[in-house]
């Protein structure tokens, strides 16, 4: 099974020893400190950037910096860079399915009516009538057709 030699566990990189022993890439301690330094710099950047307003790009910038930090942690602190590639696939597949989850959920929910600020019910913005799938309010919702206030349908508002 195993060769009789004992190998010193030094920083070889990828060895193809067939002796069945565990061989890992061991980085120098300074390298980990360097990655930590980069992470701190990215944190400072993300905090400073948050004080400026880039409109709708705010979220994207924040997520971009966060992903850079996460990549550093995953690749080097969690050793994915020098590990079997399949571990990286397992890790990334979680984000892939999360993306599908977010995509399909938002595609459904954001195609419904907008929230009416006054009453908190979901209404179609052009007409103002209550959207299907939105919750009803006991308060009066002005209807699209002129004249006549309709009664809200039953339930008291569930939100607080």
């Amino acid at each position, binding site marked *: 099974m195993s060769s009789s030699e004992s190998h010193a566990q030094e920083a070889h990189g990828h060895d193809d020893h067939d002796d069945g022993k565990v061989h890992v890439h061991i980085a120098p301690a300074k390298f980990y400190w360097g990655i930590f330094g980069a992470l701190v710099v990215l944190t400072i950047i993300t905090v400073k950037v948050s004080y400026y307003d880039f409109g709708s790009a705010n979220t994207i910038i924040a997520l971009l910096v966060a992903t850079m930090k996460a990549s550093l942690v995953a690749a080097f602190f969690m050793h994915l860079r020098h590990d079997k590639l399949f571990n990286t696939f397992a890790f990334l597949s979680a984000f892939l399915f999360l993306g599908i989850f977010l995509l399909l959920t938002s595609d459904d929910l954001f195609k419904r009516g907008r929230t009416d600020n006054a009453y908190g019910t979901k209404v179609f913005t052009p007409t103002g009538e209550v959207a299907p799938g939105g919750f009803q309010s006991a308060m009066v919702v002005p209807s699209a057709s002129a004249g006549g206030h309709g009664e809200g349908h039953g339930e008291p508002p569930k*939100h607080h």
Partner: protein
Amino acid sequence: MSAKGGHPNFLQHHFDTPAQQFDASKLGMWVFIATEILMFGGLFVAYGIFRGNDAEVFFSAHQLLDKKMGALNTIVLLFSSLTAALAVRSAQVGKRQQTSLYLVITIACACIFLVVKYFEYTHKLHDGLLPGHCFGHPWFGDKCLDHGGPAQPLSVEGLPPRANMFFALYFAMTGLHGLHVVLGMSILVWVLIKNIKGHFSPEYFTHVDLGALYWHLVDLVWIYLFPLLYLVG
């Protein structure tokens, strides 16, 4: 770790070689990490939906969070990730005492994180910024409903209605994360005890490696939590 007939003690009977055992353990841990990402992901999707619906509400409400405490917690967790990685490295080169030292520092950083969180949470309780129907009533150890009637939207800070949704998400996400911090600490304490007893060597450091991987996951989640809750309006 003396080998009997070429078989190390730590090698379990259903594995052929230590390398195969180590690879299997690692893969198992990564699959578990994937499930944890999906669990937190559920809350992140909820955050995305509620924020998409009520962007202005989120913008007003998130300013009540203390950015400085959040940033401090971020640095503390990043540092603890560093010491966890250094602990694994020390185990890989067989330096037992150094491994223990780095594990202790990591656990200490986790305690600091929880203390800062404690101060944040108590501040929220005193301000009445609680999730759900308690919103608007400062918590003095009584049931909030005893203050008379359902809670009104908080008007002291001039928060718009439905601001309690932000705090519901805040407590759920940071609470679940805090629970994982406690779990990660327990795992690291267990690994520390095993290390002190001398169970690990350059040939067998799996516990340290996988325990540190769990801790890095906790850090990863916070890396995303911090900007989305504290920084982005």
